[in-house]
């Protein structure tokens, strides 16, 4: 058995307790990219972390590393914890900084994602785009189940970068405002940034949440577009439920990937509806409030699932009274009450079709 012992986060709203309160209120915080990502960037609304040092050349590291270190310290993991790290994009900016700063000794001593090392110890790294956070969580849970460690710390992080802002803008994938996941008014995603860390253990400590099951699935379809039926998502959900020993009807709520893109939301909801034979539990997404945290998005969803099971509250998608949801199961405008301690499912999907689904239940 594996238990979530603690959670730390840093998002556009602040730390984890503040972020959770903002989710329950459906609050969104957006700023314009402006000078946040440096030369050549496009001007778009983003969910940026406030007061984050973004000067890339200062120490050959970057905002992604600073976010990671801040959250890792806040987590307070045991000293003998094994670290598992997932990220998406920020490393490209770091290499750009390295190549510009070749004469600096610290740049010469640093390679690629070595800078994500929190110390000289080993950290397992896995790359599956926006599913990275939950993918490394799966590896951590496996290692704990196998008895390799007693404690594990899982960290996922991504910071704003020129590549992602330009790339998503040029792909036409962005909403011109906040994202509206699963609503009729959805027009694309909102880029966000942040870091989320979770400490795991093999024994419960106080009020812990148990990780009941993990499932993986891959569309094997297209580099960016999901399979129209959400094939990989369906497989991941089924596998997670099977591992947890649960029937679909046992799940009280779903914290979906829900980016706010037309194809993505449709495919994900289709997969969910298929698994639940047309009668899914309440479904929500926090990307309207926090933006899309890219590599950290999945771990943020896990944090929401943990808190929802613990408190009996599922955050809403704030429609601001503007539009209806595309399905009756979508939770809009007001938090939904669920049974405290009931299983809640978290989902994360990434470019290329990798999906991870995790079922948790608070004790």
């Amino acid at each position, binding site marked *: 058995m594996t238990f979530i012992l603690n959670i730390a986060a840093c998002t556009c709203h602040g730390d984890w307790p503040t972020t959770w309160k903002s989710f329950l209120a459906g609050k969104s915080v957006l700023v314009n990219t402006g000078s946040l990502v440096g030369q*050549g*960037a*496009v001007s778009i609304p983003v969910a940026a972390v406030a007061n984050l040092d973004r000067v890339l050349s200062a120490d050959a590291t970057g905002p992604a590393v600073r976010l990671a270190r801040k959250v890792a310290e806040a987590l307070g993991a045991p000293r003998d914890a094994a670290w598992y790290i997932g990220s*998406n*994009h920020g*490393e*490209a900016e770091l*290499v*750009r900084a*390295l*190549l510009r700063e*070749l004469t600096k000794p610290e*740049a*010469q001593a*640093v*390679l*690629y*994602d*070595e800078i994500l090392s929190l110390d*000289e*110890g*080993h950290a*397992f*790294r*896995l*790359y*599956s*785009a926006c599913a990275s956070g939950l*993918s490394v969580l799966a*590896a951590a849970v*496996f*290692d704990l189940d*196998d008895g*390799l460690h007693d404690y594990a710390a899982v960290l996922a992080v991504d910071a704003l970068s*020129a*590549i992602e802002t*330009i*790339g998503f*803008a*040029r*792909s*036409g994938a962005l909403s011109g405002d906040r994202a509206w996941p699963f609503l009729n008014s959805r027009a694309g995603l909102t880029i966000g940034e942040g870091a989320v860390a979770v400490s795991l253990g093999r024994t419960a400590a106080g009020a812990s949440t148990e990780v009941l099951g*993990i*499932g*993986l*699935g*891959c*569309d*094997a*379809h*297209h*580099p960016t577009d999901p399979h129209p039926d959400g*094939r990989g998502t369906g*497989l991941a959900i089924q596998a997670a439920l099977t*591992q947890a020993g649960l029937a679909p009807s046992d799940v009280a709520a779903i914290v979906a990937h829900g980016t706010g893109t037309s194809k993505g939301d449709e495919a994900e909801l289709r997969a969910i509806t298929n698994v639940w034979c047309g009668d899914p539990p309440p479904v929500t997404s926090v990307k309207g409030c926090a933006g899309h945290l890219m590599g950290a998005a999945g771990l943020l969803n896990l944090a929401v699932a943990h808190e929802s099971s613990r408190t009996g509250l599922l955050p809403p998608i704030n429609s601001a009274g503007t539009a209806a949801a595309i399905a009756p199961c979508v939770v809009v405008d007001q938090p939904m009450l669920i049974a405290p301690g009931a299983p809640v499912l978290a989902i994360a999907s*990434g*470019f*290329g*079709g*990798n999906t991870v689904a995790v079922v948790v239940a608070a004790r």
Partner: protein
Amino acid sequence: MKEISVGITYGIAPNRGTSTDVLIDADTYRRCGLKHASAYGPQAALAALAATSAAPADRSFRPRRALLTNGGPWSMDTALAFLHSAHARGPQYVNPLQFPMTLVSAAPSSIAAMIGAGVCGVAIGHDELAFFEMLRHGAQLLRHGLADEVFLAAAVAPSPALKRILHAADPNAAQEVGHCSICFVLGTALVGSLILEESMVLDSEPEWRGASMHRSEIGVDGILRMAGKGPEPHRFLSASGAVACQHALAGSTVPGAIGIICKTRSKVGAALFRRQQLPPS
């Protein structure tokens, strides 16, 4: 617990673990079958060759098949070209098709689509011990019932950005980056003479830590010396473990245990295989 059988195939035939005369050219990119392969880069092309060398002709969707590749700075050339284009000409002139390929995960997820891998297509690790992490994670997917077969496509190829980064890190290093294109297939339903017992990466003891960084002090060099073939002039970076395992396993045909250990500045990667004698059919 079911035993994990291991099969090994090659995208490019190994030549003492390096193919010094390998040319990654337009023909290689076309032959590998990966769409827009030249935009992904040479390592992605070799990984695609490795994975397809092990996949059967029928590559329809397999919900219980997984693909893992080694991580590393493989997307750097595409990422840097993307940024250069944006800075030099303006964001509006950037080709949006290049955007997904700036991710480390782009190549494995696209190769997963080529071989119908329905469990995952992800990249693991970033340094010389990445392959030991791939072996471990692949075994976990099998043991935890998430997959029936796991393709481990290990590949490395030199690229312009990689050469600049390596030179910046250690200007005195004379070694060139080699080529590698190997696929290990793990499965619980396979019948084979080679079994994977265990693989892991651990922090090494403090007294093992040396001055150099990102160098395999015991690994390809050591194994080749023991085999009487002399030190290898090429580095294999995050495919080092695959090359070391391939050398060790190719050199052993008698039944028994085969252990491979690779060491970096602060970590140790170790894998244990067992070669067994199959009963006569």
